[in-house]
């Protein structure tokens, strides 16, 4: 079956989640990938949304982090302070699934502002949300982001949530129990942090994509793993499940805006 770049990105991200993994899910692409994992190979993946829903099993993708489908299908719904304190800060999350506007080669993320100054930005973005603490407390972080030079930058305009802090020593600072951003899944390939240098390195390209194309779409001098692999093609089962999910979602929300 044919597939779009967004589809293989979502499917590659879904594969990152194993059955039983506890995943703290951001809205948008992370939510699509996490739910795709749940309805395909990982039926017992535990999805936590920052709205307080634990074990959500939505039949359609939520438009917001707090849709009623999440509450109605969750194992339990707790308060927002509880979700951040007992569940995230309490180190119960295996994988934090995040998006961002900008990323650098150490996995630092910007969702705050672009251009100008902090107090007079050219483009004001939504801000931190749960990201700084998800990035620090989840056992590891996976980032889902479309490849472009605007997004993959040499230097962030603002560090909203931290990756490896530009320290190439394999250690994260005290107070940061998790392993940090281990994997970035894009519409072109998969970039993984090198344990020796903490720098993000291209380890997989999607079928038909070359390393050169990925380097071209990256704002820093992207390193390529010597044993570069090719992402397995999306299976018919994966694609059908993803398209059905988007179709159900579009029908429920009265538009095709999330289907892309």
């Amino acid at each position, binding site marked *: 079956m044919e597939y779009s770049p967004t589809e293989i990105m979502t499917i590659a991200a879904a594969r990152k989640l194993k059955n039983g993994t506890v995943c703290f899910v951001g809205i948008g692409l992370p939510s699509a990938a996490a739910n795709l994992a749940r309805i395909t190979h990982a039926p017992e993946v535990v999805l936590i949304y920052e709205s307080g829903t634990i074990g959500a099993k939505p039949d359609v993708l939520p438009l917001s982090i707090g*849709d009623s489908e999440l509450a109605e299908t969750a194992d339990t719904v707790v308060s927002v302070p509880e979700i951040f304190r007992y569940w995230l800060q309490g180190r119960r999350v295996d994988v934090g699934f995040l998006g961002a506007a900008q990323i650098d080669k150490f996995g630092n993320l910007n969702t*705050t502002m672009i251009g100008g100054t*902090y107090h007079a930005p050219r483009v004001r973005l939504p801000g931190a949300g*749960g990201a700084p603490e998800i990035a620090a407390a989840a056992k590891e972080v996976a980032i889902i982001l479309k490849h472009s030079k605007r997004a993959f930058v040499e230097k962030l305009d*603002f560090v909203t949530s931290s990756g490896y802090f530009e320290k190439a020593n394999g250690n994260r600072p005290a107070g*940061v129990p998790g392993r940090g951003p281990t994997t970035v899944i894009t519409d072109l390939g998969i970039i993984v942090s090198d344990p020796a240098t903490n720098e993000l390195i291209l380890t997989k390209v999607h079928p038909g994509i070359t390393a050169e194309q990925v380097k071209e779409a990256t704002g820093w001098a992207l390193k390529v793993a010597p044993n570069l692999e090719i992402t397995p093609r999306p299976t018919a089962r994966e694609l059908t499940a993803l398209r059905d999910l988007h179709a159900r979602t579009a029908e429920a929300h009265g538009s095709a805006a999330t289907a892309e």
Partner: protein
Amino acid sequence: MAAFSSLREAVASLVHDGATVAFEGFTHLIPFAAGHEVIRQRRRNLTLIRMTPDLIYDQMIGMGCASRLIFSWGGNPGVGSLHRFRDAIQSGWPLPLEIEEHSHADMAARYQAGASGLPFAVMRGYVGSDLPKYNKNIRSIACPFTGEVLTATPALNPDVTVIHAQRADRKGNVLICGIIGIQKEAALAAKKVIVTVEEIVDALNAPVNACVLPAWVVSCICLVPGGAHPSYAHGYYKRDNAFCKAWDGISRERDSFLAWMNRHVLATADFADYLRSIEAGSKVSSHA
């Protein structure tokens, strides 16, 4: 003890120019009706607190009610930017907007500290983030036992917290259910509390460990069916996703925004009138 009043009276008597006001509801039960009433009464110079200043604050900021915003995520969930919020920060329109920016975990902890009678909250936060560089309210504190350095931020204690809930009983006890967000903490942290509700019932019939605000911690209860529109009320009506998407276009330009606000908020008498004006009445009719 909770008084029952119209929303107009509640806002007139409790929300004053210059006050620090939290409108809470984490992507659910957002108190839009109360936000509109504040706009109608042309409140000015408010410090607005909210974890997720979505459409409700886009409207209040764009109408010039706020001079300061304390928040952690400002967007139109699942849709994109908040154009009025951005215009205020990027261009100072209609007024310059001072911002104090935190993370969700921090804002939640700050409300908890406020509800707990503590002056500050402790959390593991912001490691490696630039946010503390721009916010003097993000400081550090050392554990007296391990020496570990953590983040401390001051308690939030709004002058008024405004929330929307499913129902109240005739004594004024309030039941919130579904995604309960930060409402209990925001209410208990505030000096005064306004609650708009979908209905007032003889008996709450709340499960024993449900999220209930006893009548004696609530200042005013206002019956406003549909009062969360375009947000939703679990068990009553769904989110008006079409409206949230349409807001992106309505709010993109100053003129279209002002025209919409004039027609649907300033020119309407109350929230029921607003719902009629946007023909959303059928979307928020109770399931009951």
